[in-house]
């Protein structure tokens, strides 16, 4: 860091230099920008709309987007290695279909939920093996998995299956009070728990560091003697697991299974990860950044709902514009620093 070497002319200049260093650092820069953006959106919302400052607005952000946070966590692992997973939306839908149909057939939730998680992890394993051992582009391999999962949804049922199981309903409707007039759902707890686990894995385990290493340079990782093959496969297993878990949360949220559900959600997850500051080329990024990304997407939606005059399609337009800005920002930052 240059700012620490340069003789401090004045504390302000040093602080400014340090701030500039942080912003142009590909590791922290985009995350800081996202955080500032999120705060800015809240300030705008609070100044324009009554009721926007209600803490439940924030709680609802988490409630409505718990499944997306889970997807984004898995996606972060994949993108950190420089890969991509297009199958997560379809796998999520497939999970809701499995849950709804097996519940209808009278299976107990205690079996169904682990079954879904194992099945989607196995699908992720298959995708990972395909990518690593047959050297197939992640884009293509996960595209194939996406079609497969979406197709399987229709095999299970062409129509909506609603969920009437008491356990699922209980999990959907339970409110955990945090304060008077402020509550969250069990899904939020699960999602936050997953985020914590992911942070610990990424930053305090060799697996996590290898994920970053692969994103930095796969060839170097191999020459440094890191378990590149295993890790590369594992990130797709993690993403598969997260898709399954997100599917379970989504079925709590909607209490139904439907083949056409969550179309395009994989793109929301990718957008959240990118807006959260993870470099699409891999190697830089944080899970917490992805959570911020999800919250940004959710806040845009909330702002548009509060406004009432804009159609919900404006959400898409804003997300598109933001994404563009962030991709350009990443390009600029990486060009400056490497």
């Amino acid at each position, binding site marked *: *860091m240059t700012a620490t070497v340069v003789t401090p002319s004045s504390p302000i200049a040093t602080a400014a230099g340090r701030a500039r260093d942080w912003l142009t*650092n*590909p*590791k922290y820069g985009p995350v800081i920008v996202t955080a500032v953006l999120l705060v800015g959106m809240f300030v705008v919302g609070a100044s324009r709309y009554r009721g926007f400052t209600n803490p439940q607005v924030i709680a609802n952000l988490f409630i409505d987007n718990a499944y997306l946070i889970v997807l984004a966590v898995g996606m972060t692992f994949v993108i950190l290695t420089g890969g991509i997973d297009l199958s997560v939306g379809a796998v999520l839908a497939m999970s809701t279909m499995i849950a709804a149909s097996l519940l209808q057939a009278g299976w107990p939730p205690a079996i169904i939920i682990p079954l879904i998680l194992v099945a989607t992890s196995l699908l992720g394993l298959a995708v990972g093996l395909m990518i690593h051992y047959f050297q197939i582009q992640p884009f293509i391999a996960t595209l194939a998995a996406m079609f497969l999962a979406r197709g399987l949804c229709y095999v299970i049922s062409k129509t909506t299956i609603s969920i009437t199981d008491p356990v699922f309903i209980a999990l959907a409707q339970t409110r955990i009070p945090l304060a008077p007039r402020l509550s969250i759902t069990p899904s939020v707890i699960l999602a936050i728990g997953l985020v914590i686990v992911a942070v*610990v894995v990424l*930053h*305090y*385990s*060799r697996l996590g*560091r*290898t994920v*970053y*290493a692969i*994103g*930095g*340079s796969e*060839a*170097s*990782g*191999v*020459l*440094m*003697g*890191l*378990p590149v093959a295993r890790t590369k496969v594992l990130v797709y297993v993690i993403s598969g697991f997260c898709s399954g878990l997100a599917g379970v949360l989504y079925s709590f949220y909607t209490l139904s299974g439907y083949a056409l559900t969550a179309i395009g959600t994989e793109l929301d997850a990718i957008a959240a990860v990118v807006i959260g500051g993870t470099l699409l080329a891999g*190697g*830089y990024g944080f899970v917490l950044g992805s959570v911020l990304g999800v919250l940004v997407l959710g806040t845009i939606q909330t702002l548009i709902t509060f406004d009432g005059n804009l159609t919900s399609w404006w959400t898409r337009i804003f997300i598109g514009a933001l994404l563009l800005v962030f991709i350009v920002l990443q390009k600029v930052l990486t060009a400056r*620093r*490497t």
Partner: protein
Amino acid sequence: MTESQPAVSMENISIEFPGVKALDGVSFRMFPGEVHSLLGENGAGKSTLIKALTGVYRIDSGVITLAGEEVSFHSTAEAQAAGVSTVYQEVNLLTNLTVAENIMLGREPRRFGFIDWRATRARAAELLAKLHLDIDPNSRLGSHSLAVQQLVAIARATDIHARVLILDEPTSSLDADEVQELFRIIRELKADGVAILFVSHFLDQVYDISDRLTVLRNGKLVGEYLTDELLRIELVQKMIGKELTVLEDLERKTKQQTVDEHELTPYVRAIGLGRKGSIEPLDLDVYEGEVVGLAGLLGSGRTELARILSGVDRADAGSLEIDGEAKRIRTPRQSIRDRIIYSSENRREEGIVDELTVRDNIVLALQADRGWFRPIPKKRQDELAESYIQALNIRPANPDALLKNLSGGNQQKVLLARWLAIAPRLLILDEPTRGIDVGAKAEIQKLVSNLAENGMSVLYISAELEEVLRLSHRIAVMRDRRMVADIENDDLTSDTLLAIIADGATTEAVA
């Protein structure tokens, strides 16, 4: 030098790639507390041998023993676990992570299963201190210079309680002071009993640091020597080798007609031409109808000079005169317009288009020169292809054959045909005979000689001295990116030339 048990012993190692014997029964050993240099020209098998030792390649036959124990590595991780660590030429670290992480990655101290960052950083700082490297372990590796990154790579290598440390061209990105710093570290490691393999094409450095040398040539072992007992000139001789010439008459012919028209303006004159980090400024004249040989070891700056002359790389010092007129050449397109043609040593990547036919490859440059809106009529294309196939004896004599199906020698001929089709005035041939069979070699040399007779200037780059001596009227010698001699090829012998290449004696042997 104690002949104790070797730290590494590789016996009769052979590795075959499709169509090539990369290593042919090579034996190699390293002793603890000794620096061993591996020498050889491009394609001699140095890097293949290293990769065999580090588990990147599997050996087809032979035995590798480590401190008396037979081993067989299937991955670099296994080799590292056994105490063989490597620092590669291009720094193979992760610029996105911190210095500390790069040093410790995969071996971080853990507490309760989690990485103990405090201990990790402390250990990294300790290793950096050992190398007298004063940098913040928490800084991003990418924010440091290549030289520092190289030293960080060595810090990483020394932490893997290395019994064997392989340094593959570690000095190519370092300046003189940094090299001395590196040598100090190497000597310390040596004193600790580490066996060190040092690969470098800088002979000064090799003689400075190594105790023992092993020379490879064409995938075969030439011999193992103690550095003190092998003169530099002998070493170079062993690296380059001498082939018995089948082209004596060609040589005689060349000598007879040594051009004596130097009062004329040269076709191309370089004055103080140089490029930072590539070659030191140098002067060079090439006259019409003259073959100038460019000799020197690998990495001496031969190819760099060719690339600057032809505009592939841009010169940042000096000037260029063509026919006595100052010209600026910034791109290959400009140099081609002035009919200065560069045929790269890297035939596969910078020469042929292997998915196209012989005909398409031959007309490529001519078509580009005419502009893409004036296509060469099919009939003319056929004529061109036919005539060059005949003239250069290209086999198979089929203009529709795909170039990838031709042998190396025939690909080279097609490449020559492509350039001849646009009538070059200065043809720069970089290793035109590398990796092709003897017959084709002779044909190409004959062709060069004929072209010069007809007034074309040729700059002929080759690692094979015999070839350079046979063809050239004048020979320029490059050494450590500097031109150290520019002499008439009158009664030059390969021994004199070797002496210049090895010691850089700037004896201006004027004719």
